[in-house]
């Protein structure tokens, strides 16, 4: 049975950040809060199973209808698993918080297909925190979105950690890399 297969989520990050580094070394680096790293629940990710499926059959309804030109619309390609108010409508940008809001260094993630190249990318939905909800352009993408026992893939949680105040203002969709 597959334990963790959110596309290549794990594989990518292992590739990008772990490389020859040991798991222990990786944790040490997380400890310094300098790098991103996934540490999987209970069992390490199976690389074989984590391979992204890029066949047309893998494309969700969202992916089939996504666009790449307007990041203030819910069907912008990166928003495949977002939930909340778009920072792009609220004085921020696709990877910028509005003035006075603080970006959570920790986020949930999605794997979204860019219709321009047909490739899957890992998106970090970083919440901007510490201000009352902007409530401008509310979107809810649910591609591969799970429940709260798999937190990093759940978009209902207020992802405001390591910030001064966890009030939720809006969400960004930061491109982390190819999936």
């Amino acid at each position: 049975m597959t334990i963790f297969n959110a596309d290549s989520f794990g594989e990518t990050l292992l590739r990008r950040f772990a490389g020859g580094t040991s798991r222990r070394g990786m944790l040490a680096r997380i400890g310094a809060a300098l790098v991103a790293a996934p540490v999987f629940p209970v069992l390490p990710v199976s690389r074989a199973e984590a391979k992204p499926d890029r066949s047309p059959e893998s494309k969700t309804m969202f992916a089939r209808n996504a666009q790449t030109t307007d990041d203030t619309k819910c069907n912008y390609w990166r928003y495949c698993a977002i939930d909340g108010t778009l920072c792009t409508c609220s004085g921020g940008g696709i990877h910028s918080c509005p003035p006075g809001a603080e970006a959570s260094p920790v986020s949930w993630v999605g794997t979204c297909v860019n219709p321009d190249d047909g490739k899957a990318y890992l998106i970090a939905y970083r919440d901007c925190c510490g201000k009352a909800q902007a409530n401008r352009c509310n979107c809810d993408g649910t591609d591969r979105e799970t429940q709260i026992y798999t937190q990093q893939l759940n978009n209902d949680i207020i992802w405001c950690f390591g910030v001064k105040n966890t009030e939720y203002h809006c969400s960004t969709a930061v491109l982390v890399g190819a999936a």
Partner: protein
Amino acid sequence: MNSAASSPLSGASRSFARSLARAAAFGLAMIVAAPAMAGPASVEPEESMLTTLPSPKPSWVFLQRGVALPGTTVFDTSTGKYVAQIETPILGDLAIDPAGKHYYVAETVWTRRLHGTRQNFISVYDAHTLTLEGDIDIPGRILVGNRERDFVVSDDGKTAYVYDFSPISSINVIDLVKRKFVKNVELPGCADLIPNQGVGVVSLCSDGSLASVNLTGDKADITRTDPFFNATGDPVFDDVQFDRTKAEAVMLSYSGLVYTAKLGAKPVVSAPFSIQEAAGLRKGETRPLDLNWYPTGHQPSALHRASGHLYVLMHAGEFWSHKDNATEIWDLDLAARKVVKRIAVDGGPNVINVTQEPEPKLVVLSDGDGGNTGYALPGTAQVIDPATWTVKFNLRDSGSGLIQVMQ
């Protein structure tokens, strides 16, 4: 409300009286509540009264007003009438004392609204007067809306469990008798708390298992079942249904698999069956493009304990559309593994619950209601009689999120 009793308003405090005298001395006109001393008048002046409530009834339904407005409204599904408002904040969790004597609200506030010090606590309200009896401070709690399994009370009403994610995953254990926080127990890789009487709690885990957390000893002991579901490929909804009397949990996956588990020191999970097959259709897939009927919503199912019927919000669509609005309610006889009724439902609900009366009433609502404003304001809940499948009442301005009932 017919059932409400009344008692006279108690007098103002002395310090307030002093401040009032000072205000009066500075030329301020005002009216002070003062029926007793009223002089001769053509009409008898009225007293200000307080209203009280009976214990929570199985016919009552508790509807969170959503993420824009705080408060949980209480309606009686027998009459369609509004009963009262319980003071739940936005992202607060309500738990009802099984004995019906208290309402518990788990909440998180900063001392200065959006800054200051974060505080997490359980507010204890008297069920009859709705007055605050006190707070129980806890170290933390998850901030997420529309979940019933982040704050649960044991069947005997003596212990509360609050799920925390900080982002360390853990359980806070609270003694409701002593009104004291007891301990925090780490719960790696799991969430969603189901009370497991005499043991502790059972929890859903990201490896596809159930964890049984034994909290009877000094040290928490966590054991897990074998993985039985795919937490990323075909997750079971957080919204686990639980029958306290049978100690049985019912879980439903995105694709429509129905699992039951017998709780206890070592939970036992039954082999799943497909709700679509139980309706004479083909099994749900776990990939997009294939159209089928799928369970949907934040609160996609409701178990009527006495009859063993599971009412499920369903919609036609593709996999990964598990938050869509429902277009049908399916009535699943769990023992017979048969969908005995499929009924079209208006208003696109995505939350459902059922009262635990012998003749139950379903309550459904579209989480995120409030017209076209997009603000998730209180909308109109429908009270449906599953005996006749007719809408008995439309509860206006009622809720926009989680629906709860007396267990």
